[in-house]
């Protein structure tokens, strides 16, 4: 293309700079060749409003002077430290601004100095807050050794510790604290057990007589025995209202509202945290995490300090680039598939997906059977053996853990035959594992409830099976407690008994098996799934076991140190790197799925299932939800009318319609913006071509006028450095002066 000849390079590889091109204002603004002659007046490109990013210290003197037309007040808005200049110039800027400020009125001066003072105060406050962050030194160390991908796992863990602590504080201050301080603040606890006979019987579960030591251990691990009638479980909160001297505290209402509050708080906090990473708007629909520019320009973690880690990072970057380039080729291959091949692949995928569904159904059924068996074994109270008893108690947890161990291996084998692109393979396997993990909790709860609501004579007298489960919420709370404990034990046991020996074997033994097994890789997705699983249990279980968040806080606290030690001693970075941004996105999406899945059982049990009449704060109500209508009916009639209006169908429907309209408007706006951006892109490309074409023509005209008038003063610039393509056949068409001998080749029609 002759028009692109402007950018031919000479032998040294540098683009031959066309003298006219060098003088263009836009080119000048991007160049930052240091010229010591420029000092004093700073020129800022007025084309970039507030960002000032193209301003640089020393400018080449351009023959096209840009007027400095930005008003003074606008310049002062920009922070000095946001200018990309060396320190000496920033200092000069500052003194210049201070001099200018002295010329202002005293009101403005005071305003400026108060601005500065407030800004400094805010900076100091932020500095203090960030110094209070937990585990800063440890995370800095991990960052230096492994990069930002693994770092995001540990900062996610830190987030969960803080979240669980806040949830516990909510529950504690609204539910436990009033009961604890009631005796000291002369509060009177009322608890109306309507003696409707058989439903209110709650046999004590504490052990009588001489208790053997290992029974204490069993109790500790299973939440039964001496732990059952403590603050740990729902059944202990036998308080309906607490009458303090001045006010009456409705504990039942507080229990329900604190549950809703912690679920809502978790949702808002997670969404806020994920929005922080997504401030950039997503106008283009290219894959924003895998784009090549993101990999190349933001590929290197500048925080890596370890030489080994740097070497590994380089090799993982190389591997990633090669894989992505190959994936492009594979995409091309996929697009070239024939119809027969497509049919074969789709058929194979259907068969394999049915197989996967079958495996999942089998796992869920085994969890159901194990739960029922475990419940029946606990009910019969025939003590066989200490260990066997414990196994019966923990049977659901064991089955869930085994299923979650086998299925990822199975999925990763199956996906090889389904012939997807590598990136999609990874994501699809991950989605299957997430589904498996989180749904297994749901299956456990479902099987529990089917036991609880199944009576010998249908329908149940009290709404639930009061013979076996006199306080069913406590029983569910115990199951959640057992799941948490077992999860923690599993993580510790796997680290101690699998990862450390693996490292010792691989390091010291030289046999083929050791080499094939290889050193442990820190697989981020599996680790994240583990902790999201634990957090989902915590969210579900907090309703039945109010102290569970505190237990989870301590659990995650220890898991941080265990994982850190294991990472530093046993693991090497993954071959396929997990980027920080896609990590954060993945974590928060999975956490949101976990939260949604956790809300479901809680909602069902609050609204649907009859609460037990023998224990807990809701003995006077049929379901837990009934507290709210009962309280609302006691409010003044004005508030009642308002609340009824807010919950009526008319309000809900109109709210829904308005939200839909707003959403459609925003979507239409985004579509319009996208179209405008595409048009502007095309226009920009076209302007570039026009510019090059015009410059080329100008150079031709100049060279022509020099060659036509040899006695005129020499043109120093245009002669020597023009590349050979300028001597085209056009010169024969030219007269004096510049005019286009032929229409521009394709600048107006080129797309």
């Amino acid at each position, binding site marked *: 293309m002759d028009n692109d000849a402007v*950018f031919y390079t000479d032998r040294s*590889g540098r683009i031959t700079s066309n003298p006219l091109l060098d003088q263009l204002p836009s080119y000048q603004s991007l160049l930052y060749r240091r010229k010591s002659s420029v000092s004093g007046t700073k020129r800022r490109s007025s084309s970039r409003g507030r960002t000032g*990013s193209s301003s640089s210290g020393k400018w080449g003197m351009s023959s096209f002077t840009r007027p400095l037309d930005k008003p003074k007040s606008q310049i002062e808005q920009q922070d000095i430290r946001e200018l990309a200049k*060396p320190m000496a110039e*920033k200092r000069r800027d500052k003194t210049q601004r201070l001099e200018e400020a002295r010329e202002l009125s005293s009101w403005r001066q005071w305003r400026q100095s108060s601005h500065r003072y407030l800004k400094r105060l805010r900076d100091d406050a932020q*500095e203090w807050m960030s110094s209070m962050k937990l585990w800063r030194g440890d995370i800095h160390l991990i960052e230096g050794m492994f990069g930002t991908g693994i770092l995001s796992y540990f900062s996610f863990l830190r987030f969960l510790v803080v979240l669980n602590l806040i949830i516990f504080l909510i529950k504690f201050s609204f539910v436990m604290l009033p009961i604890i301080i009631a005796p000291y603040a002369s509060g009177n606890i009322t608890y109306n057990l309507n003696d409707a006979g058989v439903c209110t019987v709650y046999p004590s579960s504490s052990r009588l007589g001489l208790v053997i030591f290992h029974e204490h251990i069993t109790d500790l691990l299973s939440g039964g025995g001496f732990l059952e009638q403590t603050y740990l479980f729902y059944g202990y909160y036998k308080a309906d209202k607490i009458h303090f001297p001045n006010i009456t505290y409705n504990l039942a209402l507080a229990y329900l509202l604190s549950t809703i509050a912690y679920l809502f708080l978790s949702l808002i906090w997670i969404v806020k945290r994920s929005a922080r990473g997504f401030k950039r708007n997503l106008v283009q629909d290219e894959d924003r995490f895998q784009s090549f520019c*993101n990999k*190349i320009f933001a590929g290197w973690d*500048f925080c890596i300090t370890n030489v080994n880690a740097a070497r590994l990072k380089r090799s993982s970057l190389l591997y990633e680039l090669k894989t992505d380039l190959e994936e492009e080729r594979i995409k091309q291959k996929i697009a070239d598939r024939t119809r027969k091949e497509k049919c074969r692949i789709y058929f194979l995928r259907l068969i394999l997906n049915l197989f996967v569904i079958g495996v999942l159904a089998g796992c869920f059924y085994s969890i159901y059977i194990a739960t029922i068996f475990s419940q029946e074994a606990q009910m019969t109270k025939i003590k066989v053996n200490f260990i066997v008893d414990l196994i019966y108690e923990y049977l659901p947890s064991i089955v869930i853990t085994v299923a979650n161990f086998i299925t990822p291996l199975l999925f990763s084998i199956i996906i090889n035959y389904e012939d997807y692109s590598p990136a999609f393979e990874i994501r699809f396997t991950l989605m299957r594992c997430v589904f498996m993990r989180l749904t297994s909790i749901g299956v456990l709860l479902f099987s529990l409830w089917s036991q609880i609501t199944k009576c010998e004579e249908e329908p149940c007298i009290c709404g639930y099976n009061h013979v076996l489960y006199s306080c069913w919420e406590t029983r569910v709370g115990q199951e959640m407690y057992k799941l948490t404990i077992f999860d923690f034990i599993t993580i510790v046991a796997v680290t101690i008994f699998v990862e450390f020996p693996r490292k010792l074997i691989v390091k010291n033994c030289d046999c083929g098996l050791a080499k094939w097994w290889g050193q442990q890789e820190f697989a981020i997705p599996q680790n994240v799934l583990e902790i999201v699983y634990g957090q989902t249990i915590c969210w579900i279980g907090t309703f039945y076991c109010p102290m569970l968040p505190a237990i989870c806080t301590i659990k995650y606290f220890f898991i941080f140190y265990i994982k850190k030690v294991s990472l530093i001693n046993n693991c090497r970075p993954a071959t396929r790197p997990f980027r920080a*941004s896609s990590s954060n996105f993945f974590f928060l999406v999975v956490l949101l799925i976990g939260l949604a899945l956790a809300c479901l059982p809680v909602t069902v049990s609050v609204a649907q299932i009859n609460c037990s009449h023998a224990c807990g704060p809701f003995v006077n109500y049929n379901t837990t939800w009934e507290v709210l209508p009962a309280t609302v009916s006691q409010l003044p009639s004005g508030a009642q009318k308002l609340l009824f209006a807010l919950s009526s169908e008319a309000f809900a429907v109109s709210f829904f319609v308005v939200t839909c309209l707003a959403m459609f408007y925003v979507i239409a706006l985004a579509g319009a913006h996208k179209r405008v951006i595409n048009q502007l892109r095309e226009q920009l490309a076209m302007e570039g071509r026009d510019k090059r074409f015009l410059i080329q023509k100008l150079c031709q005209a100049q060279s022509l006028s020099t060659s036509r008038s040899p006695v005129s003063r020499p043109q120093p610039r245009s002669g020597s450095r023009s590349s050979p393509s300028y001597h085209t056949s056009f010169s024969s068409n030219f007269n004096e002066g510049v005019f286009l001998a032929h229409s521009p080749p394709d600048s107006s029609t080129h797309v």
Partner: protein
Amino acid sequence: MGTTASQLGKDVLSEYQELTFLTKQEILLAHKRFSELLSKEERDRPDTRVPMEKILTLPELKSNPFRQRICQVFSTSDRKDGSLTFEDFLDLLSAFSDSATLEIKSHYAFRIFDFDDDGTLDTGDLEKLVNCLTGETDETRLTTDEMRQLINNILEESDIDKDGTVNLSEFQHVISRSPDFVSSFKIVL
């Protein structure tokens, strides 16, 4: 070595706080680490320049493939030898700090990646950049075909006016949509 606070006056410290994105602790730590690179007599002189080889012994820069470019970009020396004064060092840490704005980071990133200092990222710059990322030995380079394919992809994504090079505004535009940049372009002592 003596207490660091006494060597940096309070007003100098607050001036640095105002002109950079660093906190007081970070400036003091930087002063301590910088003084460790100097010999005893050099410490008393205010504006000593530390040659590039000594700066590159810092662990934060030692394993960085862009270490020479970083020193050259932030150096204010006339001889263009990459030597840094303490204020250059503070500028460096400020641009790489947690609280620096995206514009500052992308501006300096552009200058670091512009190996031939001509104001644009052309094919030669991009090739050198990719080689820095993957390693310098022959086994760790991409093949010529792969390199060409990669550079074509990069230019397709970032070159808006289709002139075959990436200028500063195009670079900042593509960085603003890159979610990993802010977290990876960070050096903390």
